[in-house]
């Protein structure tokens, strides 16, 4: 047992050394991400000292950009399931070689989610109150306690699956089903659960009519399955350009099918919600009115949501038209969809529920520079983590990193592996 752990630690260590290999572009990218992460850390330290007063939040709008980003990112993490299902349920091998990147993305993104929740806490020093057994966890009553469980569980599941599979590739051993198949199937349902629970966090509040709608969870899932695979389409193209890992066009286009259908459902559900709000025209439409058209002379979110609507529409048009069978347009559509959904689900979903307040006050919210810096910092850190994870696993997956420390390089391998890895050059 101890030998097995030792071997695994050696494996992780050797993978970690791979993160030092790269050309100047890689170093520039990592340095830039580190710099932005540190700017975020600096901004967070200022917030720790002064309190959440450095944000744009108020008693009326008590959640803002942090929770908006959190909500969006939970969806990105859940999206890995859309790659897992075709491979493991339908035995379609097209996406087989890229599933791992979805799972690694889930790991990095869940870490970002946890960071976004942490920076939103007024008393991060009391985080231990949430640890079951030590603290006083309000489970199963509080939806937030469910969220803590499903997010950490999902992180563990994905870390286990990807950690195990990559290690088996490294050892050139056939993975034993018992060590990953059960986890893969649990993770499938778990992925749905993380986003459903996050939706229920909002849905369960009777005092906020804008959120108190049964359609929120399906909407969250549809938008997640657009933004997540969309992000992977972009990432996979970067991976195949900069490394020797093979990603087929077929895999990218299969992801396009997923993004396409999800985007159609996402927009459809959005229209359902808008119909219900505006046609009914009850007192409960106030938040939606504020969001789309402004209320009593306040228009804070109007530019945001119409930007999202334009981005969503453009993405939808590109995705359903044959243009997006060309990778360039597909990438554009994905980028537009990600940006559109980020606004729609973040600022367009979290903030308007607070405006007007339950007592009818209109207090607007706009994030401060410090808030933006913290968010940018967490995004940069997440990207840094994802890049690191990719950098550690790709050499294993391409067979460049094996247990034999100084395996002689064959001529074939040099011609096949012409990526940015110094060892093969």
């Amino acid at each position, binding site marked *: 047992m101890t030998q097995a752990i030792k071997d695994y630690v050696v494996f992780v260590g050797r993978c970690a*050394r791979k993160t*030092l290999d790269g050309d100047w572009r890689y*170093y520039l990218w990592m*340095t830039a991400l*580190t710099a932005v992460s*540190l*700017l975020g*850390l*600096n901004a967070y*330290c*200022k917030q*720790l*000292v*002064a*309190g*959440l*007063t450095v*944000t744009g*939040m108020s*008693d*009326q709008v*008590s*959640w803002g950009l942090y929770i908006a980003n959190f909500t969006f990112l939970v969806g990105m993490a859940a999206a890995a399931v859309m790659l897992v299902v075709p491979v493991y349920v339908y035995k379609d091998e097209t996406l087989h070689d890229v599933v791992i990147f979805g799972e690694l993305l889930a790991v990095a993104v869940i870490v970002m989610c946890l960071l976004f*929740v942490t920076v*939103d*806490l*007024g*008393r*991060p*020093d*009391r985080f231990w*109150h*949430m640890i079951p057994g030590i*603290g*006083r*966890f*309000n489970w199963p*009553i*509080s*939806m*937030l*306690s469910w969220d*803590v469980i499903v997010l950490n569980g999902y992180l563990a599941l994905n870390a286990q699956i990807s950690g195990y599979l990559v290690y088996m590739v490294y050892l050139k051993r056939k993975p034993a089903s018992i060590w990953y198949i059960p986890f893969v199937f649990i993770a499938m349902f778990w992925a749905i659960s993380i986003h459903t629970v996050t939706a229920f*966090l909002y849905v*369960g*509040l*009777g*005092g*906020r009519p804008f959120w108190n709608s049964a359609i929120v969870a399906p909407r969250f899932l549809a938008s997640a399955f657009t933004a997540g695979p969309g992000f992977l389409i972009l990432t996979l193209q970067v991976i195949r350009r900069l490394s020797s890992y093979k990603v087929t066009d077929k895999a990218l286009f299969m992801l396009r099918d997923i993004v396409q259908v999800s985007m159609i459902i996402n927009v459809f559900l959005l229209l359902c919600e808008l119909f219900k709000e505006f046609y009914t025209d009850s*007192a409960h439409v*106030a938040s939606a009115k504020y969001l789309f058209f402004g209320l*009593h002379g306040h228009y804070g979110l109007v530019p945001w949501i119409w930007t999202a609507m334009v981005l969503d529409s453009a993405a939808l048009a590109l995705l359903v038209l044959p243009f997006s069978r060309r990778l360039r347009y597909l990438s554009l559509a994905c980028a537009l969809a990600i940006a559109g959904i980020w606004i729609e689900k973040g600022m367009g979903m979290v903030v308007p529920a*607070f405006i007007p*307040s*339950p*007592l*009818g*006050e209109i207090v607007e919210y706009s994030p401060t520079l410090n808030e933006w810096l913290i968010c940018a910092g967490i995004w940069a850190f997440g990207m840094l983590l994802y890049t690191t994870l990719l950098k550690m696993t790709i050499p294993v997956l391409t067979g460049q990193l094996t247990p034999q420390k*100084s395996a002689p390089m064959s001529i074939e391998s040099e011609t096949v592996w012409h990526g940015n890895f110094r*060892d093969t050059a």
Partner: protein
Amino acid sequence: MAEELKPGEAANEISRRAFLAALATSAVTATAAALSPLKGVADLPTLEEFLRLHYKELTPEDKKAILERIAAQVEKDYGVRPNITDPPPIPGVEFGYALNIGRCIGCRKCVYACAKENNQSRNPQIQYIRVLQMRKGSIDVESSKTDYEGEVPKDGFYYMPVQCHQCRKAPCVKACPVQATWQEPDGVVVIDYNWCIGCRYCMAACPYGARRFNFEKPEIPKDELNPEMGYLSNRPRPKGVVEKCHFCLHRTRKGKYPACVEVCPTGSRKFGNLLDPESEIANIIKTKRVYVLKEEVGTLPRFYYYFNL
């Protein structure tokens, strides 16, 4: 790595190492610079505060020691020795509140009496009571104003003060992930200021906008501090936690009225034991025209509005 090198690459490797070393050094320096604002921390929790258990897990001895420590801290910070207690709920008592909407003139004396009684931060201002100036003939809170000025009452308006409704089915209690807020046997929804993690989910859950968050360290002038304090009510709060109206439990559990009831010049505010059929509050609910705000959210408030007819 070294064993994989061809001889000609040795120089390259050295410069690469130098490069990595320089990178590591600058990363450490930059991290230190990023962390530098932490030097300004003035309200770091003590080890005892960091490890302090949930209110319900404290033994009587723990409580005694904690109350003593808080008293010493308050004396140090404000130069006043407080009388800090932790009165338990009285058996057979369920508190209820009724507000005569026909009599309230919107003077906001209750707002300021509450702030003073409960040691609410003056800067930034925290107030538990919000008085809505409503247009006569309208019950739409959206057309109300809370920032009205000048002489009151104004023609054509009536006034509806709102504070924590101490709901029987309190959404805030359900929301809290760490049980930092709960309902006491006498119906008061309280907060353990040393257990709250500041996630503000309770604020999102509250249909009455009753909860306030300490966005920064609360500031109370030394000469305005109320030294009569309760652990679950008006002792000074730290930065980063939620607070709200608690029916002045450090007074009401000792047989006094809440500060807002006492100060009201028009007698619009009534308070008492709902379980006592002879009490004024029970009588009002029986005989007056009574309503609760936002009945449709189904939280069953213990705070009623009524009018004479």
